[in-house]
């Protein structure tokens, strides 16, 4: 049995060696949690992959596996890509974190990039986008557009990323319209058209005339269109098939520049493990075209807000902001630090309801 272990080790080393001789082409792998046709999260990552191919032409080869379950399946897919000689692998879901770290240990010469995670190693970087900046712009438009003063929010899972989005949207909706109320529905999925449609209908029945979503399908748009007079926003991708109404704008994930930059770093041998959190300024977060269904002055305000966020003149979480229980979080003029934002586990003052546990 010792011999077998030894042989396995040797074979693995051989695999490593093959992976090390990265011939002339740089091989870049992508592991997706959903289907590339989801029209949202995975779709935008795959746009990034295509941009890498377009940028480097026949100097790169990209491969991807879609619909990968988080856990042992992800670990196997990652190992398989590394064995097949990938030089750089992007794992595009939070739940791939443990698998990424485990496989990275076995393949020290392969570089890994884990989206939305927090665990790094010498050959593992993490990257994410400051979607809350986009949520701020969205919140402003939502607050200005609502007539019933009820905004529905389809939330996926109660994790910091999603809570941050709710808070940012709420703060800016409230600024535009002090009477605004948020109704939040937790659907416990990132992508499930049927559940998302049900959630949208339930919110519309409760009087919401604006629906924000932190889920990836276009089902809420379809539900809004059917109900009539309800405003929606594209999530992750533009979802422009529902423009100009109900979809009046969108929160865009733009991964291409980052993927191109990191691939270039591997090609040039300058890749280093980093933690990236980019926003509107770097172009990782985009605002989809604001349609004419939005009054001109609201559109102008939204674009001004976007510009202020881009230049850094304004931070989306600027005090005074209290927590839901009324305690002070940020004093007048104070801005939130990244540590607080990364682990955000509370609603800001004014949001009704509890974060589910």
């Amino acid at each position, binding site marked *: *049995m010792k011999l*077998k*272990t030894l*042989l*396995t*080790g040797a*074979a*693995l080393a051989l*695999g490593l060696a093959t992976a090390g001789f990265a011939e002339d082409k740089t091989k870049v*792998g992508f592991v997706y949690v959903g*289907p*590339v046709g989801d029209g949202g999260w995975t779709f935008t990552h795959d746009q990034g992959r295509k941009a890498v191919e377009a940028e480097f032409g026949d100097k790169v080869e990209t*491969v*991807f*596996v*879609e*619909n*990968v*379950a*988080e*856990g*042992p*399946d992800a*670990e*196997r*897919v990652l*190992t*398989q*890509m590394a*064995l*097949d000689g990938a030089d750089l692998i992007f794992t595009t879901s*939070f*739940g791939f974190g*443990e698998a990424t770290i485990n496989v990275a240990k076995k393949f020290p010469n392969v570089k890994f990039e884990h989206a939305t995670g*927090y665990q790094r190693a010498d050959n593992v970087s993490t990257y994410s986008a400051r979607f809350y900046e986009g949520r701020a712009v969205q919140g402003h438009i939502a607050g200005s557009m609502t007539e019933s003063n009820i905004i529905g929010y389809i939330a996926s*899972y*109660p*994790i*910091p990323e999603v809570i941050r989005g709710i808070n940012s949207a709420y703060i800016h909706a409230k600024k535009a319209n002090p009477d605004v109320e948020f109704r939040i529905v937790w659907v*416990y999925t990132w992508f499930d058209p049927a559940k998302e449609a049900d959630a949208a209908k339930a919110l519309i029945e409760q009087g919401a005339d604006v629906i924000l979503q932190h889920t990836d399908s276009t089902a809420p748009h379809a539900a809004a269109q059917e109900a009539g007079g309800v405003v929606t926003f594209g999530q992750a991708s533009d979802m422009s098939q529902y423009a100009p109404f109900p979809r009046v704008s969108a929160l865009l994930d733009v991964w291409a520049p980052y993927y191109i930059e990191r691939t270039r770093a591997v090609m040039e041998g300058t890749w280093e493990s980093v933690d990236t959190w980019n926003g509107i300024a770097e172009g990782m977060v985009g605002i989809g075209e604001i349609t004419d269904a939005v009054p001109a002055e609201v559109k102008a305000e939204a674009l001004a807000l976007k510009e202020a966020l881009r230049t850094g003149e304004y931070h989306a979480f600027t005090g005074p902001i209290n927590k839901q229980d009324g305690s002070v979080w940020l004093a007048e003029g104070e801005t939130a630090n990244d540590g607080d934002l*990364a*682990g*955000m*586990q509370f609603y800001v003052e004014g949001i009704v309801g509890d974060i*589910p*546990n």
Partner: protein
Amino acid sequence: MIRVEKRPQPSQFWSAATPVVAVLATMVAGGLLFAVLGKDPLLAIKTIFWDPLFGEFSFYYRPQLLIKGAPLILIAIGLSLGFRAGIWNIGAEGQYIIGALVGAGIGLAFYPLEAWYIFPLMVLGGAFGGWAWGMIPAVLKVRFGTNEILVSLMLVYVAEQFLASMALGLMRNPDGMGFPGSRNLQQYGSAYNAELIAGSGMHWGVLSAFLAVIFAYILLNRHMLGYHIRLTGEAPRAARFAGVNPARLILFCLGTSGALAGLAGLFEVAGPAGQVTIDFNVGYGFTAIIVAFLGRLHPIGILLAGFLMALTYIGGEIAQSQLGLPAAAIQVFQGMLLFFLLAFDLLTNFRIRLARGEVA
């Protein structure tokens, strides 16, 4: 004219041959599908069926076959007992989740104590959790005559909500910076279902799957209870005359399949998965239904079917990454397998005759 004629007795030959014919037909039809998608069909079939077993990196994939196949086999063995007796547990996925939660919960409760008895306790907890979840439809059926198909299926969704709640609440890793998911049991020696021989893929769950196959074989062929199970499925009236107690049988079949599914969940969460996460369950409980039927509800057949299914998963991933086949094409391919199996099953009970056209 083609006529379909009922056989006086099911054909022994076709009963054994249909799975093989179904696999061959799947390869042909799947090859056509891949060709239509613009891929080399022979290369695709080779990538799916040959490479994981004998390809360049088979030293890595062979152990993975054990890891992927074991939970399928363990669950399918339990399901097959009930299916043989006409008791339909469709909710193994839920029992799998609850088994994992109870087992992992015990492990996490002991953290960071290191002791030899923690893992055995977790195993018992896993089996108990699955058993208890399986007993809900069993008791409701025995007591109130509810339909176990519906109840067990609905309980899957309840279990999923429960899982999400645990991953986000009670079992969330206190050192996880607010992210969902429990501590990683792989980093907790006393609770880790490690490989028994490093690099072999053999963990306690794989061993249990093999044991389950042997026990099921003995039970069905050598034991009175197994005889009752078979008799109830094949001739319910005769079973009643033979003194079979249907309530006891329901409790036994649903309880056992629940316990085995719970064990599979525990071995997975304490081993390859390591963590209680929101999306911990990946459909083993549902795929095991296919495995049970693909294996003709026979223990040895299930063993082979489990590994075949694992092979299509692992080979399918390789084909996705190397050949750019879409995931949906692989799923269609797996679906074909069951479709052809059921289609060719016709030959077991019927014979096809070429007859001269008769006057209508």
